């Protein structure tokens, strides 16, 4: 009996080879390629700015650049961007291409929300909710990077590192929500590079729409996105509870 016959008693050589070839076949993405051409000529571009894997997630405390302070989605800049990338926006992106990524069972069941130190600091409810939500997002979801903007356009959390990308994402989300072009849940997705996409989630509160942008390798499942939105609502309700 030769060694191959010995091996085949314990495993399926064809299956193993297929798995191995699959791992070798996929070209590694050593850097994020530019796909700016799909955004149209009005888009200034973010090639070279993106450092998704190099910057730690951090809260932004300085005065943020606010490209669209309470901008009407019908204003020219927002419309031009929206029109320019119309082909790239899919209100329901969860059924195409690679299988979407689900959250772990533990996340789905518990959707845990940490108590952050600012919880009893007397802050208004929305900032507290966004802080709690961001902490949960960082720890419990398989995202590569994220940003969160509050309704005034202030960037609360940013490890995306591309102001222009955040600008586009926020414009899209606002346009989708206000113009009624998005799915009922307001979920959007933009491909930003090969094997990189950004899921854009408008997060509704009485103060207005906050925006979360999640950079992922593959689309999150609709269930996962719903869990994330639910987590924000839970954070919001807890932070609004008197005495907490």
């Amino acid at each position: 009996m030769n060694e191959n016959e010995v091996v085949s008693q314990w495993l399926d050589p064809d299956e193993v080879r297929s798995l191995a070839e699959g791992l070798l076949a996929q070209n590694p993405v050593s850097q994020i390629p530019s796909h700016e051409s799909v955004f149209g000529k009005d888009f200034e571009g973010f090639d070279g700015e993106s450092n998704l894997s190099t910057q730690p997630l951090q809260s932004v405390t300085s005065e943020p650049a606010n490209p669209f302070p309470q901008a009407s989605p019908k204003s020219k800049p927002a419309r031009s961007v929206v029109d320019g990338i119309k082909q790239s926006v899919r209100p329901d992106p969860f059924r195409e291409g690679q299988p979407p990524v689900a959250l772990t069972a533990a996340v789905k069941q518990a959707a845990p929300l940490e108590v952050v130190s600012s919880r009893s600091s007397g802050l208004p409810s929305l900032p507290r909710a966004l802080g709690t939500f961001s902490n949960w997002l960082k720890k419990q979801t398989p995202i590569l990077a994220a940003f969160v903007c509050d309704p005034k356009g202030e960037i609360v959390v940013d490890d995306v590192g591309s102001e222009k990308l955040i600008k586009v994402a926020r414009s899209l989300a606002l346009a989708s929500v206000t113009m009624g072009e998005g799915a009922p849940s307001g979920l959007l997705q933009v491909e930003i590079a090969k094997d990189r996409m950004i899921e854009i989630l408008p997060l509704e509160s009485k103060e207005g729409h906050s925006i979360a942008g999640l950079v992922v390798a593959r689309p999150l499942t609709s269930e996962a996105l719903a869990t994330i939105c639910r987590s924000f609502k839970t954070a919001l309700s807890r932070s609004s509870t008197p005495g907490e």
Partner: protein
Amino acid sequence: MTTLAITSQKGGVGKTTLSINLAYAFARSGRKTLLVDTDPQGSVGLSLTRQSRHLSGFYDFLENPVMNVGELIVPTRLPTFSLVAAGRGSAYEFGSGPISGNIHRIRGFVSQIRAMKYDVCIFDTAAGLFGVTADVLGVSNGVMVPQQSEPLGVRSVPKMLEALTRMRAVNPSLQVLGVILTMVKKELSESLESAQALRGLLPDEMVMQTEIPRNDLYVQASARGLPVGVMAEGAKTLAIFEELRLELEQRINPPIPS
């Protein structure tokens, strides 16, 4: 900077020996190299420094959001070779999810060492591709998988490939640099047959040409707290890891700057 993870589903395959000696080979080539022990057993620290018990390290960094990597780096006598011990933290997670929740902190770790102008960072990981190890793979450029040249090692290959396939979904830029046969014992027919079986099973480009033989010298080096290549009797072994380094450098894309 190139970040490499040395990982395997199975324990006891020689990950730490490989990590230490490969890092030493890179450092000897003039690359500023950092070896990071992400195995909570702390084998790198226990192998190379008698003070490892008292050192803060990788797991302390995960637990302490204000800690800087610079506080953790332990220099060695070779100026281009530094290490970070596993530390005393307890952030090791046994969850089976594809990611443990530490990926952002680990990304911050990598960001800091990149800023320190390291050329190569090698993560020695715990066995099993889950929890913190999965997070490490989530931020690495490449992964190399030591596989012991024994029947049990070959039989565990499917699980290893399945786990790597899952990791590629999380980190599409993760380059599978290859499987390396370890603990090869040429005088034992079962060991040689296992090596041949593995080479027959996997595509040629997935199995490194270099093989790491079973050698008592590793035990002796560990006893003295040294990479094998530092020992007087270690020239032959040093040459093996130098050969491995050169083979790896041909595979790593983008190449490590000289």
